Each structure stands twice: as structure tokens, then as C-alpha cells.
């Protein structure tokens, strides 16, 4: 059977379900945050889990479709932030090969790698991509973007760190480790 390595049926379904979860999390699940009247965006935690489990191809499309759907149900897409979400899914997915989550390996080394990656990815997405696109598309003032992107970066990194790490840890526990069976004496 001819099959491209990245478009498997499983990844097609994962993109769809990932986007749907991203949508539901972003739209309906509001986690309380320490700052009054604000909520935390946990959808990036979920997206990072999908990127790690299924890879960059699923990450980029789930982020893009999920974020576009959220924006569409509000009335108008904000392309610069949608693209940033997609790139976040992509970058986190790049370390999939380094984290063997399918075999239940998610120890200290993997946790650190995951968190360093997601913090860098958030920095690239919100501080660089979203800001540059906001300047190019909407000609927004630079100082407003600095405040906006730094807030987004900090908040999203924290929530992704907490939610993503916890979810991956829980997922790894559901997988069977290679060679976990031992012969009884």
C-alpha cells in the first residue's frame, strides 16, 4: 500500500479530534487564574500533548483548524494569532522523536526537554510571529504589542507547562513500557 509517512489515517483523525478538543478547551473550559476576571488558556497544553504524541504535522494543523474555529464562532478570524497557534503546534512536535511517549517513557529528562521546548516555542510564537504579523497586517503600535506578547508568552508558558506536563505524564502511565514484563522465577 502506498502511503505518505505523515498523512496516515491516524494522523488525519488526530488532527480532527485535536482541533475539536482545542476548540472545546479554548471556548468552554475556563480555568480560574490568580488574576481576577481572567482565565487561563489551557488549549495550548492540550495542543502540546497532541504534538508530542502525534508529531509536528498533526500539531500545526490541529492548532490552525482549532484556533480558526474558535475565532469563527466569535465572528472574525484574527489571522496573526491563528498562525502563531499553528506554529506552536509545529515547533513542539519537532521534539516528538526525542520523547518516546508511546513506550511510556516520560522521566525527568523528557519533562525538562518538553518544557524548554514549549517555553521557546511560545516565545517564538507570541513575541516574534504574532507581533510581527500584527505590525505587518494591522500596523499596531509596537509598545502595545510588547506588553501583549509578553503577557501571552508568560501566561501560555505557565499553563502549558502545568497542563501539558501533567497530561503527558498521565498518558505515559497508560502506555506499557518496552520490556516491562518479567519472567517469574
Amino acid at each position, binding site marked *: 500500500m502506498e502511503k505518505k509517512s505523515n498523512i496516515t489515517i491516524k494522523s488525519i483523525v488526530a488532527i480532527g*479530534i485535536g482541533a475539536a478538543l482545542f476548540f472545546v478547551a479554548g471556548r468552554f473550559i475556563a480555568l*480560574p487564574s490568580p488574576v481576577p476576571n481572567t482565565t487561563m488558556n489551557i488549549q495550548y497544553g492540550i495542543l502540546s500533548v497532541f504534538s508530542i504524541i502525534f508529531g509536528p504535522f498533526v500539531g500545526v494543523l490541529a492548532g490552525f*483548524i482549532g484556533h480558526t474555529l474558535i475565532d469563527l464562532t466569535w465572528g472574525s478570524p484574527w489571522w496573526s494569532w491563528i498562525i502563531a497557534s499553528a506554529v506552536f503546534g509545529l515547533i513542539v512536535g519537532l521534539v516528538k522523536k526525542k520523547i518516546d511517549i508511546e513506550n511510556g517513557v516520560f522521566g525527568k529528562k523528557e519533562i525538562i526537554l518538553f518544557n524548554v521546548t514549549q517555553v521557546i516555542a511560545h516565545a517564538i510564537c507570541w513575541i516574534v510571529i504574532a507581533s510581527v504579523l500584527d505590525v505587518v497586517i494591522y500596523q499596531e503600535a509596537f*509598545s502595545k504589542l510588547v506588553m501583549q506578547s509578553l503577557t501571552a508568552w508568560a501566561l501560555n508558558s505557565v499553563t502549558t507547562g502545568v497542563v501539558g506536563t501533567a497530561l503527558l505524564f498521565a498518558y505515559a502511565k497508560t502506555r506499557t513500557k518496552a520490556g516491562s514484563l518479567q519472567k517469574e522465577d
Partner: protein
Amino acid sequence: MSATLSYIKKNSPIHKLTGSTKFIFFLVWSLAAMITYDTRVLVGMFLLGVVFFRMSKLTWKDIRFAVLFMVWLIALNLIALFLFSPEQGVGIYGTRTEIVHLFWRYSIIAEEMFYLFNFMMKYLAVIPAALLFILTTDPSEFAASLNKIGVSYKVGYSVAIALRYIPDIQRDFREISQAQQARGIDLSKKDKMVDRLKNSAAILFPLVLSSLDRIEVISNAMELRGFGKNKKRTWIVERPFKKADYVAIGIAVCAMVISMLFIFLNGGRFYNPFV
């Protein structure tokens, strides 16, 4: 869930257009609004959008919440833009016409007000087209539309799966949440911050893990039915293009051309009435 916009079935000329037409229209239209900052083009696009909206027989009640929310978002943005950079318009238009000085570094400057007005119009020009696209396109037509404009049908199928499973995941979310509340987990504001965070995890974990299981079930079902075997596929909801479809796409292309033409005429993205 009345706050969420979704397809509303009606009998209007806009509803009769194919999903592909509306999708292409929306993409080209938002691209046209994205590249220009010309006030005349943006206002024209907004007014035309309102006319199309009237043609769709949708009512103000259908969109009230979404529009008010967008207005609120735009207002927040405008305020933030003004607070952080009250002289942005001066830099763009090159002149400075102060009307009233407020306090410290803030004054009402004609150029800044004009820039903020344009910023607002940039959103208002797209909103009618976006609303029309969401409210008059049958979701089941969406995958076919994506395929028609050249997106691989497999990716189109991902979008269809997302739309198909959003209600299911929402229902799962509600069921898990109620089940956990029945077991004594408090999610209301009465509980402490830290406990509420912990309690939210009690919902999130089953939700994500059950969704991951669902991926296995769906992909096995699709695999068994031979999904993805051929390079092309047909769609049950696909409709042929009619005259009205070509007209609609023509209008969007015109908007794009006009938008680019004005950039050329103005020698830049901005229309400058101050010189």
C-alpha cells in the same frame, strides 16, 4: 450555548450559493481587507457586506451576541492602542493636527483618531463576510469546499471530523464534569483557588484521555472502510457551480483588485487625507 455561532438554515440567495463559493469569498474578502488600510475601500467593503447580510434573511437576533462581543474586543484594542502609543497616527500620516490636549502625553490628534478609525474599519469590513460564511454554510459541505479549492481531501476530512466531534466532546465534558461534581468535587467559586485548579484537573484528564481513545476507534473504523485508498474521492453534498456562484466570486475578486489598485494609487497602504 446560544453564544456560539452555527449554521442557520434559511431559504435565501446566499444560502443557495455553494459552500466552496462562500469559503472562497470569505478568504479573498478577508485577504483584501488585510492588505489595505485605505478608508474608502474598507468602508465600501463594510457597506457591501451589510447589503449581503440583508440578502441572507438573517436577523439581528442571530448575530447580536457575536457582534457585541466583537465590538467589545475592538474597543479594548482601540483603548490599548491609544494608551500605549497615542502618537502612532502621527508617524503614519506624517502630520500632526492637535485638537485638544488631554493630559501628560495624551491628546486628541486628528491623525491618531483617523488611524484608530481605520483600525476599527479593518475589522468591521471582514465581520459581515465571516458571519455570512459561518451562519449560511452547512458544515457537511465544508470538507467538500476545502477539497474543491485544492486542499487535500484528507485534510478536508480532518476539518469535517473536528466539526463532527465538537458536540460530542462538549457532551463528554459536561458528563464528566457532572459525574465529578456528584462525587463531591466543587468547581464553583466557593472553593479555594488551589483546590479549584486541582478539581479542574479531575475533568481535564478523563476528557483528554478518552479523546485519545476515541482517535483509535475512529481511525480503525476508517481504516476498515478503506479510507484514503484512492487519490480522489467524491462528496455526497457537493453541488455544481451556478451563475450566482461565479458572480459572488467575481465580486470578491473585484474587491481584491480594487484594494490592490488603491495601494498602487496611494503609493502605500494608507489613504492620507492630511496632505
